[in-house]
């Protein structure tokens, strides 16, 4: 009926936008409303297997003295049984990877249900999981993905090329998910079934990194029968069917999602230690962290500094903190006044209280950021310095601007709108803090919007200043989409500030065309300098996605994916804490009975 499909469309429209956002910024700090699909397939030119970057950013770091990590010791003997209770910050609209946008909480629920086609090892290199091989053509214009034989979905149907194709076709015709993939494919003949288990993907540009894109939501494969059913009955988006080690048995929205061991798992069930995984939604993550102390949860995943601090303070709980998970920043819309004028952008930047942000908001759980890369990462340009806390420099700029554009000023201050999402205590605190710094030079009107609307207004350019979280991708090529001129125009722009710089475009595409790492580093460093000079972003801090874990939870970072076909036992240790995402299939509880 009409109304239903309408609403569906509307919801999809929303989700589309979410799909684009690497952000969580706004809200991530507080209640993790964040949607992060950073693995947007792009025509990256890194060749499979040559991925020697060690940019496995999201790893337990040792640069923070407070951080403890749980390292599995060889003597540890797995204990079978028990229920792992995981707390996440937000609910997800659904768990159908071809039509729901996946944020952290969806990945937490989704990875155990769906095996991905590819994933990353400890060094950040991709390896095939459901896939057996990934074979590019000589010009990297097409890739043949062959899946392992004999794998069954939870509904008993077989994983084969047809299933793969069904997933791809559903995703690319879905208004949401298609946005992320359509640009990389030709209008016709996007996929071809080569044989029972092999599907060919045809691209419009050479891409050496194609499998990377199939490590996330887009690489999760659902049963074809299920997808057909879900297309007809949308509530099935809450009851996904995959091939994974755990099966969804119950889902009570906004409360708990329950998974149980898949006794027919294709890799065998010997290493699936947990009987059951329960994922709880708790929008107040500081309370969620307390629930570790009260033994109501075993693991809490959060980006909220208060929660991180709470977890650090609980006996018997350790934290696994990832500081390469992106950056928190404010940005300005350069497509309309006042921030089309660099003087206004500079004034705002100079007046920003970054030190206050570090002290009051981040509470030293995450370091100040100067650019889109953490200093530990090779891509970082150490010469770039994010300005701020220099209000004295703002005054002449504002006076100057107001003399030229009096209609944008009142009482010698520039009028601006500060848009943020909420309601959220942390967001409000951030706004209070920023406003304290800015209000001497700007007349600030606040615009508090619900998450969805905040994203839409931002994507459609109906904003002046927002706070955001973004970047942090393993490969810099994945950042191109946020920075290129092509996405600075249109109804929806992924280049949020709508800032187009021809020179930067050239650099971005040069980077994409080469596999010379030194050159790529040089390019990225230059781009960081350009971004800094354009005054479109005001970086605050690097983000910190924290896993807070009870000590009896073992092996979070020792989990493995399948080895090469025919040698599945030669399992590969997985990357741990990937921007708040994790698997749980090899985890065990020390005190499970």
């Amino acid at each position: 009926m009409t109304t239903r499909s309408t609403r569906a469309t509307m919801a999809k429209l929303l989700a589309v936008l979410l799909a684009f956002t690497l952000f969580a910024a706004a809200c991530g700090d507080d209640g993790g409303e964040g949607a992060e699909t950073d693995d947007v397939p792009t025509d990256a030119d890194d060749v499979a297997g040559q991925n020697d970057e060690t940019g496995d950013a999201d790893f337990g770091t040792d640069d923070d003295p407070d951080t403890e990590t749980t390292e599995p010791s060889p003597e540890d003997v797995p204990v079978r049984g028990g229920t792992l209770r995981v707390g996440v910050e937000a609910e997800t609209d659904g768990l159908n990877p071809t039509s729901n946008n996946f944020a952290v909480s969806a990945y937490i629920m989704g990875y155990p249900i769906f095996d991905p086609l590819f994933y990353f090892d400890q060094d950040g290199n991709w390896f095939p999981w459901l896939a057996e091989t990934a074979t590019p053509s000589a010009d990297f214009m097409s890739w043949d993905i062959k899946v392992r034989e004999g794998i069954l979905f939870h509904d008993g149907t077989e994983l084969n090329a047809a299933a793969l194709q069904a997933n791809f076709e559903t995703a690319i015709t879905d208004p949401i998910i298609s946005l992320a993939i359509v640009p990389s494919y030709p209008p016709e003949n996007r996929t071809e079934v080569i044989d029972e288990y092999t599907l060919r993907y045809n691209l419009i540009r050479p891409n050496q990194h194609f499998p990377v894109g199939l490590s996330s939501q887009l690489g999760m494969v659902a049963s074809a029968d299920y997808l057909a059913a879900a297309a007809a009955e949308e509530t099935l988006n809450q009851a996904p069917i995959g091939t994974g080690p755990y099966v969804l048995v119950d889902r009570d929205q906004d409360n708990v999602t329950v998974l149980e061991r898949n006794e027919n798992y294709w890799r065998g069930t010997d290493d699936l230690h947990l009987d059951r995984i329960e994922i709880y939604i708790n929008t107040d993550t500081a309370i969620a962290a307390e629930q570790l102390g009260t033994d109501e949860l075993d693991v809490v995943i959060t980006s909220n500094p208060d929660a991180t601090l709470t977890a650090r303070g609980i006996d018997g709980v350790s934290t696994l903190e990832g500081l390469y998970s992106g950056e928190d920043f404010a940005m300005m819309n350069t497509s309309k006044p006042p921030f089309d004028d660099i003087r206004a952008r500079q004034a705002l930047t100079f007046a920003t209280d970054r030190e206050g942000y570090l002290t009051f908001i981040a509470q030293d759980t995450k370091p100040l950021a100067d650019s889109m890369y953490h200093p530990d990462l090779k891509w970082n340009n150490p010469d770039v310095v994010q300005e701020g806390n220099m209000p004295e420099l703002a005054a002449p700029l504002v006076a100057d601007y107001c003399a030229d554009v009096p209609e944008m000023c009142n009482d010698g201050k520039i009028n601006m709108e500060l848009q943020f999402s909420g309601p959220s205590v942390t967001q409000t605190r951030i706004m209070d803090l920023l406003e304290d710094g800015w209000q001497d030079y700007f007349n600030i009107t606040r615009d508090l919007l619900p998450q969805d609307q905040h994203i839409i207004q931002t994507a459609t350019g109906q904003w002046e200043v927002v706070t955001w979280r973004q970047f942090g991708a393993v490969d810099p090529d994945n950042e191109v989409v946020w920075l290129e001129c092509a996405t600075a125009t249109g109804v929806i722009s992924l280049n949020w500030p709508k800032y187009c710089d021809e020179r930067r475009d050239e650099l971005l595409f040069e980077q994409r065309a080469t596999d010379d790492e030194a050159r790529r580093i040089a390019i990225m460093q230059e781009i960081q300098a350009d971004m800094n000079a354009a005054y479109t972003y005001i970086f605050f801090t690097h983000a910190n996605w924290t896993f807070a874990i009870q000590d009896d939870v073992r092996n979070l970072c020792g989990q493995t994916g399948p080895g090469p076909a025919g040698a599945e036992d030669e399992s590969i240790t997985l990357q741990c804490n990937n921007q708040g995402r994790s698997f749980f299939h090899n985890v065990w509880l020390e005190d499970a009975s």
Partner: protein
Amino acid sequence: MRQLILQRLALLILVMFAVTIATFASINLSDTPLKNFIAAGAELDTNGHCDAIRAGEMDDTQQLGQNVGDCEYIDRIKAENNLDDDIFTRYGSWLGDIASGDLGTSTTSRLEVSSILKDRLPITIRLVVMTQIIAIGVAVPWGLAAAYRANRGFDRVSTFASFGLLSIPNFALAVILLYIFGIRLQWFPTRYSNNGWYDELKSLFIPAITLGVGLSATYQRLLRTDLITTLQDDFVHMARAKGMPDRHIMYRHALRPSMFSLVTVFGVNTGALLGGTLVIETIFSIPGVGRELVEAVIRTDPPVVMAFVAVIAAGFVIINFLVDLLYGWLDPRVRSS
């Protein structure tokens, strides 16, 4: 009796109209992402590309950036959402759906509103019932004890205490109790859980206490005042003259005729609680009606908001009707008139 029921039914229907129209109007006043999106599309289409595309003179994929932003897509969304219809037409179509038993689908989770309601309502009802049991369970003995020795030591202290309890904002109490009993003492869980009835009861206990404390003070005060009046009645003296023990007189004679105000306020509060648990549900992460409603309002999910508000308002009317029936039980004089 039949007339009373018919009258109440008419009232119920009228109230439903008033409440849903008001809700529909206010939820449609809110900006929705959709409206903003279409507005953005229209803003960018100043040079009339969409008209050109509609006329088939232009290839739509080249215009307006991304494919979702294309004209066809915008047109389709507008049509599907009846955005060109006026608000009355849209309200009418909502009513039509309701009349045919279709509460619609959430605009975000795409779940049937009826199934969301089926999940949420029982939890809130259980919370409200627990709250009222606690409130009444405390208030009745307390009111009896206070009225029994009115204006004496216990009564004075209890009057003071009741003012105190009445004056604690329940969100503040929630925060304090959650901290003390959930986190420090760990006697009760800090969030809703429902592994069996005992588990659920336990997890709803502190929220119910939080809501019940203020209510019990309200009830106690009403009951005490009425009891003091009743205790001056001759039939109470008569009962004493008959040598009935005090306990018997308090419970069997004085209590029932003194419950009118209490029952009235009890009814009003039960109705009000159905829609009044939202702050507590938010604080204690209880997936009940209130929390869902808050979230639905914030994310602008009209079908959910409409259905939930309608159910709560209906509950209010029905409970008040039941209270009217209860008067009859309390006092046979009402019954016969």
